[in-house]
């Protein structure tokens, strides 16, 4: 699915630079559910953003679905993001003046689908996250958990191969977090590859594999027995 080799990333800080990722090697197969863990500032988000093509590495190779990702034009990157990747953010990042359905259908707009088709697909995915009845509601009228479910529906709308979630439960209480995790597990059961950045152990335990970052290098990479979230819901 994806293969990363000796990946480096630095950020310029004034005159010097901050070396954030110091040679990451990681490969993820199709159908995996991986938790990326680490303390604050260890470079988790940086790694995920590079995987998501929102940012570029300074050095190293990154191959996604047999496509080497290097020196992409912004247009190509946009197309890959649209076809291959679904993003779930800690702060949901819904567009506040669009209702739930329009938010979910937005990636489909950029795929060039007809409006009718977009509404159909959007409603289908909203139904999947159990929010079909909320289709016409604005984000401001939804709870945090509902917002994140709309965001998940949006990430799923374009039927991506890889779901990238940066602390998807970071802004939610425990119960709601488990609901979201149960849902992500279900998606993984259906075959979606999922990468989740988190610093909560219980959330990581609900994945199938845990990668620990310390100071820009992978210190631990282990497969674990998945804890099913549904038992807590």
């Amino acid at each position, binding site marked *: 699915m994806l293969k990363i080799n000796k990946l480096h990333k630095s950020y310029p800080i004034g005159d010097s630079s901050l070396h954030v990722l110091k040679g990451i090697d990681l490969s993820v197969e199709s159908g995996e559910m991986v938790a990326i863990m680490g303390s604050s500032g260890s470079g988790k988000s940086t790694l995920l953003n590079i995987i*998501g093509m*929102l940012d570029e590495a300074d050095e190293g190779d990154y191959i996604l679905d047999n496509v080497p990702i290097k020196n992409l034009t912004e*247009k190509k990157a*946009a197309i890959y*993001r649209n076809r291959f990747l679904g*993003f779930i953010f800690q702060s949901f990042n819904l567009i506040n*003046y669009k209702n739930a359905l329009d938010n979910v259908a*937005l*990636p489909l707009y950029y795929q060039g689908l007809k409006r009718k088709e977009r509404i159909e697909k959007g409603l289908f995915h909203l139904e999947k996250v159990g929010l079909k009845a909320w289709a016409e509601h604005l984000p401001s009228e939804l709870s945090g958990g509902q917002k994140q479910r709309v965001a998940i529906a949006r990430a799923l709308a374009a039927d991506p191969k890889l779901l990238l979630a940066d602390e998807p439960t970071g802004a939610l209480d425990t119960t709601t977090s488990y609901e979201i995790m149960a849902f992500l597990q279900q998606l993984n059961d259906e075959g979606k590859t999922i990468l989740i950045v988190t610093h909560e152990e219980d959330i990581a335990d609900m994945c199938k594999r845990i990668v620990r970052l310390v100071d820009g290098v992978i210190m631990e990479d282990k497969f674990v027995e998945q804890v099913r979230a549904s038992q807590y819901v």
Partner: protein
Amino acid sequence: MRFLFERDTWQEVYDSLSKNVLRTVLTMVGVWWGVLLLIGLLGSAKGLENSFNRLFGSFATNSVFVWGQSTSKPFKGFQEGKQVVLTLFDAKKLEENIDGVEFVVPRNQNQGVVTRNFLSGSFGVNGDYPLLDRVQKKKMIHGRFINQNDIDSNKKVVIISEEIYKQLFQKDAEMIGEYIQINSINFMVVGMFENGNRSMGPTSDLHIPFTTFQQIYNQGNDIGWIMITGKPEADITQIEADAKLMLKNLHRIHPEDDRAFGSFNLGKEFAKLTGFLTGMQFLTWFVGIATLIAGVFAIGNILLITVKERTKEIGVRRALGATPFEIKRQIIVEAVFITLIAGFLGIISGGWILIGLNAAFGQGDEAVLVNASVPIAVVFIALLILVFLGTLIGLIPAFKATSIKPIDALREE
């Protein structure tokens, strides 16, 4: 171009503009005001020009009037203070010898008492050739102007103005073929002309054949003044100078005697007026376009702020697969859209202003503004310019929006 016909494009435009109505309206005011000013000023300038044209329309404007005065320098044995009187011979010489001359029209005028039955008045009596009608078009209401036959046989016929008719005749009374007395001599009325514009001088006058005038006032070949009309492309100032020099020669007057002949150069005065009008139109364009550009820049500025505020949203859109082109296109559509709407409103309200100006200043014979209007082509060109400027100004925020990495846009709070 398909995206222009898609509901979503306009939904996006509507969403982003209606999110802040006040700001949208304020920016539009800039362009609206520019267009309004442009249309209002251009229309008024046109109205003023039309009014001048109406004023001078019946007049050969490339003309100069010359009359004799008295000399101020002694020359060839003549003392200064010699009375100078122009003659028909002078007129003939001028016509034959001055370059660029179209017509030379000798004219005579005297004040005369005119009576009919028991009504009478004092009017200007002009002795004229048929040629006068060519250079100072008379709008005939009834009958005709002087013709060559009148001249050849010294006919006692008269052409009166509407004003004189009103003073000497009963309302609606027949006047053609009637007789009036000028200095106790019977003249037959053969025509009546419309009162010209009063600003062009008194119209309470009448015209009799030049030759008849010579006879009854015992003028011989002397004439009051000469109207010289230049060909349309001729330099009237040059004609004036040439004519005066030649007249001085004919009358044995010192070449540098500036007082021997009086003159009024209508062509020069008219050129001043037209120059003023052209200047005003130029100023109008300048002011209007400057205001327009300022307005469009205001829109660009606001869009820039909007884009900054929407950086995060734009980041989200890009994460979801929007290409930079799609982002830019949307912002430019927004820019063009508000510029155009504001421009349309400006054109409509500009039209209303012109209608208002026409109602207030455009009525009657003495109107300051005649048919104040802007050609439709100018309106279209203005709209085209607006589209162009809108696109141009939309480019700045559009490039700003896509110049940063999506991740930096997403980090923005």
